[in-house]
């Protein structure tokens, strides 16, 4: 029964939670820059507007792929919140991302194709750590099963701090934060317009935005997984940790400039090796 409730809760509430976090993000960022910033509920206004706009498109396929992206993200997230296999969840996450990349590529437009290419590089950059992290959970708790990981006697993070560090590193890519916001950005005026979302308009962009909110909650769900255990106090601890990680991402976004793809790839792969690689190796030895 629990998994069903948590999946329904995820499907129903994640967009709201994601939008609220986004609003918080924009508010925080504005304050860090010495501005007042938009209202906290601004993301809701934006979404409402996007869905009420006229549907224009460059072809009839893109919206289909956008919707598939949304649905796959929702399924990937549901698998995490249903307590299923974390490795499967990460595989599905990449499949979902592939639909976004294809949605951008099918336009065959210069800016979105460039964005799609960069998105693929980003996927290549974060993929190793995501896979290693799943292995890390297996080494630390003896299972890939999320439902069993959260019933472990102690927080997983005690055994795998390196993985958490690495995960924070690559979450910047997933949340499209500087210095890794190569494929598209929430900020305006960049060299490739809106990158991967350039040709997405009105409801199509709304769909991608909602999918991103699902993704934020999914990523934070994985962060929470590092902290959850069978004791009740681990839940508030996990929530606090998620908020802290999110704050760190916003901070990082505001204090760094975008890097080039080779720096992105190199730094992510080296960071993966130093955090996940070493941590996993140690876990393997003590097992």
């Amino acid at each position: 029964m629990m998994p069903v409730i948590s999946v329904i809760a995820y499907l129903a509430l994640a967009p709201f939670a994601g939008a609220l976090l986004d609003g918080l993000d924009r508010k925080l960022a504005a304050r860090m820059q010495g501005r007042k910033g938009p209202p906290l509920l601004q993301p809701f206004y934006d979404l409402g507007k996007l869905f009420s706009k006229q549907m224009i498109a460059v072809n009839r396929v893109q919206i289909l792929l956008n919707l598939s992206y949304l649905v796959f993200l929702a399924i990937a997230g549901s698998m995490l919140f249903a307590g299923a296999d974390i490795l499967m969840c990460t595989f599905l996450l990449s499949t979902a991302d592939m639909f976004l990349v294809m949605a951008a590529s099918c336009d065959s437009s210069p800016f979105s194709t460039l964005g799609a290419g960069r998105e693929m590089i980003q996927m290549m950059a974060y993929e190793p750590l995501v896979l290693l992290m799943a292995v890390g959970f297996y080494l630390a708790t003896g299972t890939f099963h999320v439902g069993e990981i959260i019933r472990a006697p102690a927080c997983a993070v005690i055994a795998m701090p390196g993985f958490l560090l690495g995960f924070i590193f690559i979450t910047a890519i997933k949340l499209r934060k500087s210095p890794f916001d190569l494929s598209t950005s929430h900020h305006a005026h960049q060299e490739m317009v809106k990158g991967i979302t350039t040709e997405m308009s009105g409801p199509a962009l709304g769909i991608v935005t909602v999918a991103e909110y699902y993704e934020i909650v999914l990523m934070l769900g994985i962060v929470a997984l590092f902290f959850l255990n069978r004791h009740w106090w681990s839940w508030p601890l996990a929530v606090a940790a998620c908020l802290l990680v999110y704050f760190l991402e916003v901070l990082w976004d505001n204090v760094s400039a975008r890097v080039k793809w080779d720096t992105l790839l190199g730094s992510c792969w080296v960071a993966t090796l130093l955090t996940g690689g070493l941590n996993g190796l140690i876990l393997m030895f003590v097992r």
Partner: protein
Amino acid sequence: MGMQIVPFWLVPILILWPVLAAAVLPLVRSARARGVVVYAAAAGVMALAAALLGGWLAAGAPVITLYADTGGVDHLMLAGELFLMALIIVLSVRYRQYPVILLSAAQTGLLLYTEQTWPAAGAFHMQIDCLTMLMCVIAAFVGGFICIYAVGYMKAYHRHHAEYADRSGFFFSMLFLFLGAMFGLVLSENLIWMYFFWEVTSVISFLLIGYTRTEEAVHNSFRALWMNLLGGLGFAIAIAVASATLGTVQLGEVVAARAVIPIAMLSLAGLTKSAQLPFSSWLLGAMVAPTPSSALLHSATMVKAGVYLLIRLAPALAGSATGMTVAFIGGFTFIAASMMAIAQNDGKKVLAFSTVSNLGLIVACAGIGAEETIWAAVLLMIFHSVSKSMLFQAVGAIENCLGSRDIESMHGLLLRLPALTYIMGVGIAGMYLAPFGMLISKWVALRAFVDADNYLLVIFIAYGSATTMLYWAKWLCKLVALHRTKEQVTDVTHRDQYLSMLVHAGSTLLLCLLFPLLATRVVDPIIMELFGEAHDVLSMSVLTTMAVMLVSVIFVPALMFLITRSAHSQIVPIYMGGANEGDNTYFVNSYGEPEHLYLSNWYLRFDFGMRRLMRPSVIVATGVLVVMLCVIVGGAV
């Protein structure tokens, strides 16, 4: 259950039927008649394999050993080996490739000496079991359809390449001869027999690579020959040592005895055949051959003979130094080849690198030699054979239509050659997207590597998956770009080519849908035979999750299609800074003139190019291989 007699008289027919076809085909002069003969021969191969499979299944799928006493055939094989040696010597002299003669003479001489000095006691020569039957079915059906495909392909090929002499008769003859040899190879239990068929496949591969007789083709074919002969030499040494020390040349007994030197030498042979680093370059060079031979020999079946041998050896590889080496070489090849694939824009080259890379994964699984890893290896082998053969065929057909197999020229192929693009799409999705077979097998492999405490392989697989994803994803994106070009392309693909590709595409989808059945009915018995026990590698909950995923992958886009079909959207031109000429293909440049839009993929040549990575990879792999072979052989002597 009533015991039925397995129709084992089908076994020699299965081997000889394609050989007969090979003998007849060069005599048929007219192209039309040749096509008919090929269809009939391929249908015969498939029917024979199906009959054997059916009879064997009806008898309860037992392990059967055949042919204890085979004096005459042994002498025939000896004559065959001498003939092969003579052929190699003649061709080597003609093309001034003298070192090859040494390799060939050394191994044939060694084998002759072994057979005279330590005649092995009479034992059965062939064996039918689950793994053998699986390999036979793959070779018969994938191979049969590739032969059918080749009929249409070769016509178009020679229309496009008038500069090459049309030797289609020879080409088909070699394809069928290869099928016969492949059946012989997988059915053989006696190492001397297996060695004979092994050499036949090497030589056929050599002849097919040199098909066009251009300088490049000849050069590449000799490279393939010497590398495969090196493996053959390893094979011969294994036979010599096994008969000298163990007094047996039965593969099963060698594995059971865990004889170190024969196992190491056989592994070397397996590594060369499956084009692992440092021997990968022969398979990359083999891409000069016409596509059906690339599909049949260099991805779907012959290179699988290498991994087949390694899987046979797996129980002896588990936990041994040889196994560690094999696993390292495989994992290393997996990541290195997938990185180099990123920098390739030639469709066939990408497929070649991907083949090497996937074989690496299978080899790594075999090297670990645990139950779980072999489970993954067998599955990978099945999925890879079908999808990769289909991809090769699709690229071949596309090349015949476009006159190019450059991935860049496939931009917007969905609008130009929709049918072929869908086939490519199924193949590519099958190679790397969840929840298709390759990915699931990879997932099992990842778990098995963790359980085997091999963290290096875990890291290889983590990084290798990422690089694999990139080169497939960017190809897929190139295909789905909805880009209208003015140049007209006509689909010159023959109906027989489509038949073969559609059967492959259907099998790919079906294999995914029937995955649980495949796992329990095909893979588990193989594990059972190799290890004497089989546990459920995938739990029921995982299988259900997978079913959910598979259904969603197929139905979500379909459902979205239905939902969005009714949505009214106004179609506007793509954004090009307002300078779109209105047709999404041209834009106004700074002189006010129309300029064609050209979108290129990322190739990251300076970072992942072959020029940068190949040499270090070969050095690392050679170093590890040489040092470990010295340690293993030195330790055993």
